[in-house]
C-alpha cells in the first residue's frame, strides 16, 4: 500500500508541472527510455536514474515520488544481500515492483482505448435544442392508503412522547438599545460594536442592538461603515442627524 494520503494537493500540482502521472509513470518512462526489460530491472542503476530525474524535475518534495525512491533503495539493498545456496525460498525483492509496473502499464493501455473512444464521442454532438413542450409531468405515484397508514403507525411508534419545547418569548428592546447607542455617541463621535453591545450579551440583546443601529442609521442619526469585509463596524455620529 502506498501511503500518500496527505499531500494530495501537492501531487496534483506535480502532475501539472512534470507531466508525469505519478512515480510509476516516471519509472515506466525511464525503463522505456533506457530500453530496460521490466522483468529484469537493474535496480541499482534505475534507482540512481530515478533519483536523478526526481531532482531534475524538482519532485523532491512529492511524497509519492519520495516513497518510490525509498522503495527502490530498499530493493537495491535487498539485492545486495548474499543469497543462500540453492536459493530455496528466495524471493526476488523486485517482484512486487514488477507487478505494480505491469498493472500500471496495463491500465495505461486501457487509458489509450478510453482516450480514443472519448475523442470519437466528443466529436459527435447530441441534440441540444430542448423541445419547448411542457415539462414532463412527474411519474405517477404507486402508493396506497395502507402505505400511508403504516407510515403513520411507524411515526407514532417512533415518537411515543413528542417533546414540546416551551418557548419563553423574550421581547426585543430596540428602544432601550437605541437609548444606549445615543448615550454612547453623545460622549464620543465614533464607537464600535462592542461599545454598544456587551461581549456577553444574550441573543435578544444582540438583536436589539443590531436593530437599534439600523434604525438610527435609517433616521440619519449615525453612520455605519465597514473598512473591509468582516472588519469591525464603525459607528459614527452623523452631523446632520445631530443638528436635527
Amino acid at each position, binding site marked *: 500500500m502506498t501511503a500518500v494520503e496527505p499531500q494530495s494537493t501537492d501531487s496534483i500540482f506535480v502532475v501539472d508541472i512534470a507531466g508525469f502521472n505519478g512515480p510509476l509513470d516516471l519509472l515506466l518512462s525511464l525503463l522505456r527510455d533506457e530500453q530496460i526489460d521490466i522483468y529484469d530491472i537493474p535496480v541499482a542503476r534505475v534507482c540512481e536514474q530515478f533519483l536523478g530525474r526526481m531532482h531534475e524535475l524538482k519532485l523532491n518534495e512529492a511524497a509519492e515520488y519520495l516513497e518510490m525512491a525509498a522503495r527502490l533503495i530498499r530493493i537495491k539493498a535487498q539485492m545486495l544481500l548474499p543469497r543462500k545456496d540453492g536459493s530455496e525460498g528466495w524471493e526476488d525483492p523486485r517482484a512486487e515492483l514488477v507487478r505494480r509496473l505491469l498493472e500500471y502499464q496495463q491500465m495505461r493501455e486501457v487509458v489509450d482505448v478510453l482516450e480514443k473512444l472519448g475523442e470519437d464521442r466528443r466529436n459527435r454532438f447530441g441534440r*441540444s435544442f430542448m*423541445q419547448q413542450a411542457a415539462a414532463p*409531468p412527474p*411519474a405517477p405515484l404507486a402508493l396506497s392508503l395502507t*402505505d400511508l397508514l*403504516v407510515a*403513520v*403507525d*411507524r411515526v407514532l411508534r417512533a415518537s411515543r412522547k413528542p417533546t414540546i419545547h416551551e*418557548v419563553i418569548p423574550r421581547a426585543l428592546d430596540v428602544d432601550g438599545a437605541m437609548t444606549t447607542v445615543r448615550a454612547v455617541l453623545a460622549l464620543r463621535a465614533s464607537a464600535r460594536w462592542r461599545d454598544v453591545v456587551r461581549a456577553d450579551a444574550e441573543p435578544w440583546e444582540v438583536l436589539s442592538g443590531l436593530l437599534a443601529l439600523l434604525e438610527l442609521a435609517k433616521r440619519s442619526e449615525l453612520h455605519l461603515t465597514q473598512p473591509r469585509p468582516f472588519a469591525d463596524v464603525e459607528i459614527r455620529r452623523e452631523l446632520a442627524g445631530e443638528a436635527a
Partner: protein
Amino acid sequence: MNSLAKLLEAALFASPRPIPTDELAALDPEASPAAVQSALDELREHYDVDGHAVALRDVGGGWQILTRPEYTEAIERAQMAVRPARLSAAALETLAIIAYRQPIGRAEVAEIRGVDVGAVLKGLHERGLIDVVGRAEGLGRPLLYGTTSAFLEQFGLRHLEELPRVDELAIALRKGGVEAQSSEPATTEPSLEGTDAPTGVPTDVPTEATPDTEPQPA
C-alpha cells in the same frame, strides 16, 4: 443531399437555438448565399418528401429542425407512462405527519421525525401532495404545510376525515380495512380489502406494496 446541406443539418441539429441564415453561411466560407439557400431548400424538401418526423422551419429569425406536431402527444404520453415512482419511507412518514397534524411547520415535522425534512418537503411539494397553507405566528413566521386534493386523490380518499382516527389506527391496520371507508370504495381506489397483512404489526422496514396495491394505470 449535397455536402453543404449535410453540414447545415449537423449544425442545426447540434445548436440549442435557431440559427439565422447568415450564421449558417459562415459555416462554409466558400459557400455563396445562393448555395446556402438552395442547401436549406434541399434539406427542407428532404425532410418533407422523405417522410421524416422532423421538419426544417424558419422560426423567429433563424432556422431550426423541429419535430412535427403530430408526434408531440405520443412523446408526452410516453413520458407520463414512465414507471410509477414510490415514495421513500422518509417521504411517507413526513406525509403521514402532515396529513394528521396539518397545518404544520417544517420545524415541527422535523422534530417528530427526528431529522431535517427540508428536502423531503420540497419533494412532496413538487409532487403536489402538500402545499403551503399559511404561516405560523412568531419568529420568522414559518410556512405551514397541509395536504392537497392530489393527496386525497392519490390515496383514494374523499376527504381527510376518511383517514382513520389515530386511536383506530392499530385496529385498522390489523383488520386490513379502514372503517371510515366502508361505505363504497371507488373502483379506482387501491382497496385495502382482502389485504392479508400478515401480522398487522407494521415494522420499521419500508413497506412494499401489498398484492392489490400494485401501481394502477394512471
